[in-house]
C-alpha cells in the first residue's frame, strides 16, 4: 500500500498542473490574424464604397439631380451630366444579355441533354476555358476584326434597306455613321464575351438535376423539349436566374471589351449604330486626364452609380445562386 502510494506523494504541484502544449500561446494570435484577414475583405469592399462616395460627392453637390438627367458632358466648360453613360451602360448590358442568353441556354441544354458522349467533355472544357480569356483580347478582336466587318456587311446594308422608309422606326434606330463602332457592336462583343461564362454556369446548374428526376420525365414519354421546359428548368429556376444576373453583373462592369468599340461619345445614344459610352468606358478613357477636381469627382460619381447598380445585381444573383450552386 505504502509502496504504491509513495511515488504519488512525490508529484509536485508543478507537474500536477497540466502543462499547455508547446506553442499554444500563439493560438490566439493566429486566430486574430485570420480574423483580421477576413475583415480585410470587408474593409476592401467598404473602402471602395466609401472612397467612391467621398470623392464623388462634390459632383452630386454641384450638379444635383441633373447629374442623372442631363447628358451634357463638357470638360471645357466643366459641366457634367451622366445620363449618356448611365443609359449606355444599361442598354449595352441588357442587349448583351438578350443576345447571349438564348445562345448560352442552347449550348448548356445541348451539352447536358443531347450532346454525343464523345464531344461532351471536350466542348464542356472548351467553354470553361474560353470563359477565362482576358476581356482585352475580345476588345482587341472587336476593334480590329469585328467592327470593320460589321460596318461593311451589316450596318451599311441595313441602313440602305431602312432608307426605303425614311422616318420609320427602323430608319430611326439604324441612323448614324455606319463605321462599325457603336452601341449595337459593343453589345454584340459583350454578348460574345459573357457567353462562355453564362453557358458554363448554366451547364453546371443543369448537371445538379438528379438523373432520376430527368429520367422519370423521359420515362413518361416526354420529349427533350418538354423535359427541359417542365422539369429541369423549373428545378434549377432560382439558380438559373442567379446565373443570368451574374452574367448581367459582368456585362455592366466590363471595361476593356467595350471601350474599344463603343465610340466613346457622351451624348445620349440616338440609335443602335450611334456612338455611345458606358460608365466603365468613360472612366477608362478619361480618368487619367481628369486633373480638374470637379472633372475627376464627376467620373468617380459615375463609378459610385456603377458600383451601386452592380452591387444590387450581384447581391440578388448571389442570394439566388447560393441555394443551388456556389458558382
Amino acid at each position, binding site marked *: 500500500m505504502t509502496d504504491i502510494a509513495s511515488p504519488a506523494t512525490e508529484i509536485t504541484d508543478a507537474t500536477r498542473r497540466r502543462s499547455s502544449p*508547446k*506553442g*499554444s500561446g*500563439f*493560438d490566439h494570435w493566429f*486566430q486574430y490574424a*485570420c*480574423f483580421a*484577414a*477576413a475583415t*480585410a*475583405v*470587408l474593409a*476592401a*469592399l467598404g473602402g*471602395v464604397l466609401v*472612397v*467612391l462616395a467621398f*470623392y464623388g460627392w462634390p459632383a452630386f453637390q454641384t450638379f444635383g439631380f441633373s447629374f442623372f438627367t442631363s447628358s451634357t458632358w463638357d470638360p471645357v466648360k466643366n459641366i457634367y451630366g451622366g445620363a449618356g453613360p448611365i443609359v449606355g451602360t444599361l442598354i449595352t448590358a441588357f442587349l448583351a444579355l438578350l443576345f447571349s442568353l438564348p*445562345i448560352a441556354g*442552347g*449550348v448548356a*441544354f*445541348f*451539352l447536358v441533354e*443531347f450532346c454525343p458522349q464523345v464531344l461532351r467533355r471536350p*466542348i464542356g472544357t472548351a467553354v470553361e*476555358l474560353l470563359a*477565362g*480569356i*482576358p*476581356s*482585352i*483580347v475580345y*476588345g*482587341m*478582336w472587336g476593334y*480590329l476584326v469585328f467592327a470593320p466587318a460589321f460596318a461593311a456587311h451589316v450596318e451599311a446594308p441595313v441602313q440602305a434597306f431602312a432608307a426605303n422608309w425614311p422616318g420609320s422606326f427602323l430608319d430611326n434606330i439604324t441612323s448614324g455613321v455606319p463605321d462599325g463602332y457603336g452601341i449595337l457592336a459593343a453589345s454584340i462583343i459583350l454578348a*460574345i464575351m459573357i*457567353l462562355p461564362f453564362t453557358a458554363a454556369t448554366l451547364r453546371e446548374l443543369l448537371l445538379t438535376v438528379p438523373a432520376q428526376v430527368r429520367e422519370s420525365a423521359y420515362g413518361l414519354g416526354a*420529349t*427533350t423539349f418538354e423535359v*427541359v421546359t417542365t422539369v429541369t428548368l423549373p428545378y434549377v429556376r432560382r439558380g438559373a436566374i442567379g446565373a443570368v444576373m*451574374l452574367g448581367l*453583373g459582368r456585362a455592366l*462592369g466590363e*471595361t*476593356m471589351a467595350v471601350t*474599344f468599340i463603343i465610340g466613346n461619345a457622351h451624348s445620349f445614344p440616338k440609335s443602335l449604330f450611334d456612338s455611345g459610352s458606358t460608365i*466603365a468606358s468613360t472612366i*477608362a478613357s478619361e*480618368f*487619367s486626364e481628369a486633373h480638374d477636381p470637379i472633372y475627376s469627382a464627376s467620373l*468617380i460619381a459615375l*463609378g459610385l452609380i456603377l458600383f451601386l447598380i*452592380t*452591387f444590387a445585381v*450581384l*447581391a440578388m444573383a*448571389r442570394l439566388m445562386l447560393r441555394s443551388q450552386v456556389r458558382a
Partner: protein
Amino acid sequence: MAVSSSRVATRRAVNAVFVAFCNLVTLLAIIALAAILFTLVKNGGGSLGLDIFTKASTTGEGLADAILGSILICTMAMAIALIIGIMAGTWLAEYAGDGRYGTVIRFLNDVLLSAPSILIGVFVAQMLVANTIHHPSGYAGAVALALLAIPVITRTTEDVLRLQPISLRESGIALGTPLWTVIRTIIWRASTSGILTGALLAFARISGETAPLMFTALGNNFVSWDMYQPMSALPLAIFSFTTGSPDEVKLAWAGALVISVAVLAVTIIARVVAQEKKQG
C-alpha cells in the same frame, strides 16, 4: 386517334425545332469563339519571335518591358493575396462557424469576386496614387490586382478546408496539438492541391486584367525593375498598341497571343491539379 396523332406530331415538331435550335446555336458559338482564337493565333503567331521577349517596346520589336512588368506586378499581387486570402478562408472555415459576421464576410467576398475591376482601380488610385505615393507605381498596380485575387483565394480556401473531415482536426487535437498547429500542419497540408488550384485560377484571372492597372501602374516604355515607379504590363501594352500604327498592332497581336496562351496554360494546370486530387 386522329387528334392524338396530330398532338404527337406537334410535340415532335416542337421538339425537333428545339433540338435544331440548340445544335445551331452551339455550332454558332463554337464558330464565333474559334474565329477569335484563329485570328489571334494567325496574327499573333506571325509576329511572335524571340524578340518579343528580349527587346523593349521602345524599339518597336519587343514587349520585354511589358512582360517583365506583368510578371513583377502579378507575383507581388499573388504574394499579398495568398497571405490574406488563405488566412481569411481559414477564418471562415475554422473559426467563423455559422455566425452572423462570417455570413456577412462570405457574402461580401462573393460580391467582391465579381465587382467591376475598374472600380477597384479607381479605389486604389485614389488611396495610393493620389494620396500616398503621389505618382503611379508598380506597387499600386500590385495592390489593385491583389484585391481582385483575394476573393478567389478566400473562396477556394474556405471550400477545400470545409471538405476536410472533422475527425482529422479531432485526432490532431487529441494528441495535444494546439489548434493553430493542427490547422497549419494537418488541415492546410491536406488541402494543398485545392488551395493551389484556387491560387492558379486567381493568377489566371489577374494576369489578364487591364482596367485596374490603367490608373495605378500606368505603363512605361522602358525595361524597369523599380516597382516604385510607373510600370508597364502586358495588358496595358496591348491596350495602347491596338489603336496605334500597323507595326504596333502587330506587337499587340503578339502580346494578346502570349497572354492568352499563358492564361490558358495556367487554367489547364489548375484543372489537372484539381483532377489529381479527386483521383488520389
